[in-house]
Every structure is written in structure tokens, then in C-alpha cells.
């Protein structure tokens, strides 16, 4: 198993390298001169030697590839320089905002998995009409934009009922509405996957045999169908987690949740390039780790793959 993980990491190296290159290139090739912008932001009329000095400070006087390798060398040590907007180190900024985003993403993820299993299993085991109703509900939930859902929830729970407050301080009760918003949408689209997977397993002969043996639906679901769908579901879970990290940007900005989303929106508005680069690298890394975990789950639950991995 360890061997497999090492091989998987080794084969991922080119992808990770490519990822870092994309993160660097997107930002460094951006039109507009960050130096001029910073000077203008400070209200200085730039003299040519000032410009040259600042360019040298940020290493901007060097050509593209040496700059990339410099940047990569520092990125490997998690040094992303200083935020142009605030002057604080980018890692400090990320350190402040990352825990909130992780808390939001993880709690919405748990909510989404619970909702999806509930919706999917209920739709499979219900009668024809309930099933049609549940599938209609799933499609409707998938179609509601998260920002609208968030505003509707605010209208109902904050403005009309007064059960929650909008300007929170990042404590646990303030997490409920944003997490609910994210998990309803993500849970519905995952529920669609759960339903599809269970349905396609139910067309297989081994399920027919289990039915013929007289097993109860519950034990067929748990004993025969669950082990076969956990692998594909794990992959879908990894994708959902990535989508939640991205979707968090919208929900954070509506609920004022102090996470990375706020940071990146500010950074985009102010063209704070070091922050954008670091954000891309961290999101990519987070997504990479989740996909790796998903791959390990796939192997653990697939006897054929497990045997291959152990005997190689």
C-alpha cells in the first residue's frame, strides 16, 4: 500500500509541477504593470529609478523562466512574499483565513454526504410516485443557485424570523446558514450520483441473485451494493470537496464568513498578485490531497485492485 502511495505521488509530480506553472503563469502574464499600480496606490509620481528599484525588489527585472524557478523554490518552502495590498506576508493572510474556509467546507461536506445518501437511498426504495417526487426535488435543488438560496435563507431566518444574525464573529452558530446553503446544493447533486449508481447496480445479476435468495432490501443495499459503489462515490466526494472549496467564495461573501473567499475576491479587485498565486497553489494542493485520499479509498474497497497493489 505504501508503495502504491509513493508511486501515485511520483506520477503526480508532473501534474503538480504543471499546476504550479499554471498558477505562476496566469498571474505573471497578467496585463497591467503591478509596479506602476503599487506606486499609483501609494500616490507617488514614479521616477524611472524608483521603478527599477521596485522591479529589482520583486525580481521583476529578470526574464520569465528564471522568475518561475525562483518563485517555485520559494513556494516549496511556502514563501509567497508579501501582499501588495496589505504589506503583510501572504502566508499570514492565508493562515488567518484558511481555518474558517476549511471549517465551512468540511461541515458542508458532511452535510452534503448525509443529504445525498438520504435522498439517493430514499429515492431507490420508495414507491413510484414518491420516487418521482424525490427525483423532482433533487433536480430542483441542483438548479437553485447557491447565492439565491443564501439570500432566501437570510430573508427567512435573519430578517423575518430573527433566529440568526448576519454579521457574525465566525463562531459555530454563524456557520449554520452558510453550511446549510452549500450542503443543500452539493448534497442534491451528489444524491443524483448515489441514485444513478445504486440503480445501475440493481441491473446486475448479483443483485438478482441476492433478491432470489430472499435477502431483505436493507441487507442487499448494505452487503451487496454498498461495497461496489463506494469507490466511484469516493471519486465523486473528492470532486464535491473541490466544488465546495470553490463554492465557498460565493457563500462567504454573502454571509460575511471570514474565509479565503473574502481574501481572493479582495485580491482580484486589487490585483494583489502574490495572494492570487498562493490561493491557487493552496486550493490545488487541497484538491490534490482529497483526490489522493479518494484513490486510496477506491483501492481499499476494490478487492481486485487491492490484490494487484499488494502483489506488484
Amino acid at each position: 500500500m505504501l508503495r502504491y502511495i509513493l508511486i501515485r505521488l511520483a506520477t503526480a509530480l508532473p501534474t503538480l509541477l504543471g499546476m504550479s506553472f499554471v498558477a505562476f503563469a496566469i498571474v505573471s502574464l497578467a496585463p497591467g504593470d503591478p509596479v506602476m499600480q503599487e506606486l499609483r496606490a501609494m500616490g507617488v509620481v514614479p521616477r524611472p529609478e524608483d521603478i527599477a528599484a521596485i522591479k529589482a525588489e520583486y525580481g521583476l527585472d529578470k526574464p520569465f523562466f528564471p522568475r518561475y524557478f525562483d518563485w517555485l523554490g520559494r513556494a516549496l518552502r511556502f514563501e509567497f512574499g508579501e501582499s501588495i495590498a496589505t504589506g503583510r506576508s501572504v502566508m499570514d493572510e492565508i493562515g488567518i483565513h484558511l481555518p474558517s474556509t476549511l471549517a465551512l467546507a468540511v461541515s458542508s461536506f458532511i452535510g452534503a454526504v448525509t443529504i445525498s445518501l438520504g435522498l439517493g437511498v430514499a429515492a431507490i426504495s420508495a414507491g413510484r410516485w414518491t420516487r418521482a417526487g424525490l427525483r423532482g426535488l433533487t433536480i430542483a435543488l441542483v438548479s437553485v443557485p447557491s447565492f439565491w438560496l443564501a439570500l432566501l435563507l437570510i430573508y427567512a431566518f435573519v430578517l423575518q424570523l430573527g433566529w440568526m444574525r448576519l454579521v457574525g464573529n465566525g463562531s459555530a452558530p454563524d456557520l449554520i446558514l452558510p453550511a446549510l446553503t452549500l450542503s443543500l446544493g452539493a448534497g442534491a447533486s451528489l444524491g443524483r450520483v448515489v441514485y444513478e449508481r445504486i440503480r445501475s447496480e440493481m441491473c446486475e445479476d448479483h443483485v438478482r441473485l441476492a433478491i432470489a435468495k430472499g435477502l431483505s432490501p436493507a441487507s442487499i443495499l448494505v452487503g451487496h451494493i454498498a461495497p461496489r459503489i463506494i469507490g466511484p462515490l469516493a471519486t465523486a466526494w473528492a470532486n464535491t470537496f473541490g466544488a465546495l472549496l470553490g463554492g465557498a467564495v460565493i457563500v462567504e461573501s454573502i454571509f460575511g464568513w471570514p474565509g479565503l473567499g473574502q481574501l481572493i475576491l479582495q485580491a482580484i479587485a486589487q490585483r494583489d498578485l502574490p495572494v492570487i498565486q498562493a490561493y491557487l497553489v493552496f486550493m490545488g494542493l487541497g484538491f490534490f490531497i482529497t483526490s489522493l485520499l479518494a484513490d486510496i479509498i477506491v483501492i481499499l474497497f476494490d478487492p481486485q485492485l487491492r490484490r494487484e497493489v499488494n502483489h506488484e
Partner: protein
Amino acid sequence: MSNKSTSIPALRLGFDVGRIGFFAGLVLLALIAALALSGIILNLPPPEKMDLLSRLASPSVAHPLGTDHLGRDVLSRMVAAIPVSMGAAMSAMAAILAISLPWGLVAGLAGGRVDMVMMRLADIIMAFPTLVLALAIIGFMGASLEASIIGVAAAWWPSNARLVRALVLSASARDFVRGARLGGASRLRVVFRHILPQILPPLAVIISLETASVLLALSSLSFLGIGAQPPTPEWGAMLNEARPFLVQAPHMLIVPGLAVTLSVLAFNLVGEGLRELLDKREPYEW
């Protein structure tokens, strides 16, 4: 053959969720298209026309869906936003297909090293969460509707290419495709006569479902203020403008939100319904 094959899905009688969903989606799309054209017939005020004396007015005879914070007619803005929002989603989807279809076809058919390199390149883009990469590209280009279309398309095409490749692989493994190749059919003929017809139906499902997601992503970006810029009428941007006026003017929140939801729903219904109609498997009942 077992008697399972005698029930042809299209001829199944009675209640059929897939077919109802499919037609409901088509009807919704037709209604939206009709609404987009009705702007001229209904004689709506221009979407940019401000009437500062009737700001935030509730629905009335003069303004059937009320007015916004600048006294603009919400109905006419909602209608004027149809070609903007839908057009953005369609052009993003067209761009995604223009890259992913040839990419997936070539990778799937070439196989070997070409396939590996092409899929690795796609993996690099897929290493970022979709919306995150779109955000970065918009950061690169500066906020505008065009930038958000390009950002979404650039972040989206690899997953689509992967789906196309998977469809091509399973289509070209069929016996009659091998037979055609052994029978001396040219590569192009095999692709156009034997492989494309096989992947078109599942591709139609994918396109419909993904147009729904692209529409959602684009309106989210406009909502964040980094897509369509005011005063362009766009549903996401309209919702963004409605945020400070939640209490005084809930209609500003309801109308564009419903418009996005129903359009996304229409594409989802068509896609899901189509999938159900094409699905010939029958699960065993317990």
C-alpha cells in the same frame, strides 16, 4: 433474446418520469425563448430607463414586477437579461465543446503516448477546483462578462474532454467498429459513420446538464460582481444589486432568482429526461 428487449422505451405506455421531465424542460425552454422575443410585443420600457420618483416600487399595473433601486422596470430588465445570460452560457458551452470534442476524440482514438500526454495536460487544469481557476483567470483579465465566459470555458473543458474520451473508448471497442476497420473502412469513415453516431446521444445528455452548470457558474460570477458589469441586465448582477434592498423590495430578489433557477432547471430536466429515455436497462425490483 430475453423478453426484456421487447419493451422499447419510446413505446412504453403510461406514466414515465423521464418523458414528462424531458417535455417539461423543452416547454420551459420554449417559454423562455418566447419571453425573450415578447419584449418587443409587450411594449416594455427600455431596461435602462430610470424613474427616480418610483424607486423600489412594489408590483403595480405600470410595473408588473415592480422597480429596482434606480426605478428601472424589473420585468423589462429580467426579459432583457435572457439573451445576455443564456447567450453567455451558450457561448461558454460552445467554446468548451470546440476544445473538448476534438481533444477527447483525438486522445481516445490515438491512444498510447499521445493519449497520455493529452490527458496529463487536461489533468493539470483539472487539478484546480473549477470555480477557483475561473476566478484566477478573471483576476488575470479584469472583471467583465467576456472574461467570465473565457474563465469558465478554460476551467471547464478538461473534464468535458475526459468524458468525450471515455465515450470514444467504449464506442470504439464495439465489435461492429472493429469489423468496419477490419473491413477496410478509412479512419475518417469509422469516426463519422460508426463512432460519432454512438456517442451523440450520451453527449446530448452531457451537453444539456453541463449547460445548466455553466449557466449557474456564470451567474454566480456576475453575482460576485466579477462577471457582467452594471448596467448590463444580467440575472446574477441584478441579484447583486438587490442585496442592500432585501427588506424594502423583496421582489428584486424573487424575480431574477426565479429566472436563473427556472432556466437551469429547464436544461437539467431536458438532460435528465433524455438520459432516462436512452437508458434501456431495467433494474430488478425487490
